């Protein structure tokens, strides 16, 4: 059962990824990316990461992708021009990327992982266990994240002002 779920979700993710790269209109790329994110959220659930699953759907597929859609709606239907003058770059990049894929594949073919920690798997990935990690061991990075978000929000407001004198 889990194997079937994995392969359906993996096929959806790969198809969506191909769609992101190949569709000519940006809005179709965004919708393909939403498909990828939903498929990945299913995989997170398989990997017993319930909280990440919820965050993936709410924050990523919900908020970030809606932001992309808003920007596309704001900018109007932009189409990509035909191929540019540097056509050989396409083939060169395809070659490099295939080499990269082969490299990664060969890396984890003969990989030996260390012995798993003895964790109680009944609480693994629940909101409770995530919160314990976030508010004890990783409290400092967690608080720094709020500063990062604040800086990003201020930066976005500053960048999207009408003209210099507004602020």
């Amino acid at each position, binding site marked *: 059962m889990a194997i079937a779920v994995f392969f359906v979700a993996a096929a959806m993710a790969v198809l969506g990824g191909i769609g992101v790269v190949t569709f000519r209109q940006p809005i179709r790329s965004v919708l393909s990316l939403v498909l990828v994110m939903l498929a990945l959220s299913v995989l997170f659930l*398989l*990997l017993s990461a319930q*909280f990440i699953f919820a965050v993936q759907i709410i924050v990523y597929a919900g908020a*970030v992708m809606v932001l992309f859609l808003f920007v596309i709606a704001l900018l109007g239907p932009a189409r990509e021009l035909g191929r*540019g003058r540097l056509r050989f*770059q396409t083939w060169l990049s395809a070659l*490099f990327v295939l080499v990269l894929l082969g490299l990664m594949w060969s890396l984890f073919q003969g990989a030996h992982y260390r012995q798993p920690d003895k964790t109680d798997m009944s609480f693994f990935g629940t909101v409770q266990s995530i919160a314990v*990690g976030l508010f004890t061991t990783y409290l400092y990075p967690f608080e720094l994240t709020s500063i*990062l978000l604040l800086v990003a929000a201020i*930066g976005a407001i500053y960048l999207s002002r009408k003209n210099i004198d507004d602020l």
Partner: protein
Amino acid sequence: MNTLNIGGSQLDTSWFLLLSAILFVLGAVGVLVRRNPLVILISIELMLNAANLTLVTFSRQLQNLDGQLFALMSMTVAAAEAVVGLAILVDIFRTRDVEDVDELSELRG
């Protein structure tokens, strides 16, 4: 040893890693080949998602929650990156229509 027992069935860890590698490579192709700046941002999001899948997979394989916490952090960074990137894009698009990132070469020395 490298299999995960999920709901009674055995899934190989390297399947998840291979899927993540494929998604990452697709995102890299998007960044390298596409020329619409918006699509390049979308491809970067795809690569970040692939990295998240790797983090969660290893978190499950090693039965250690640190990977999931790091995936959460990377989601936050990705959201901040998308916000700032899109704000810059809107600012550029306000003055002119950009269909090719190679046109944005004012900073060239």
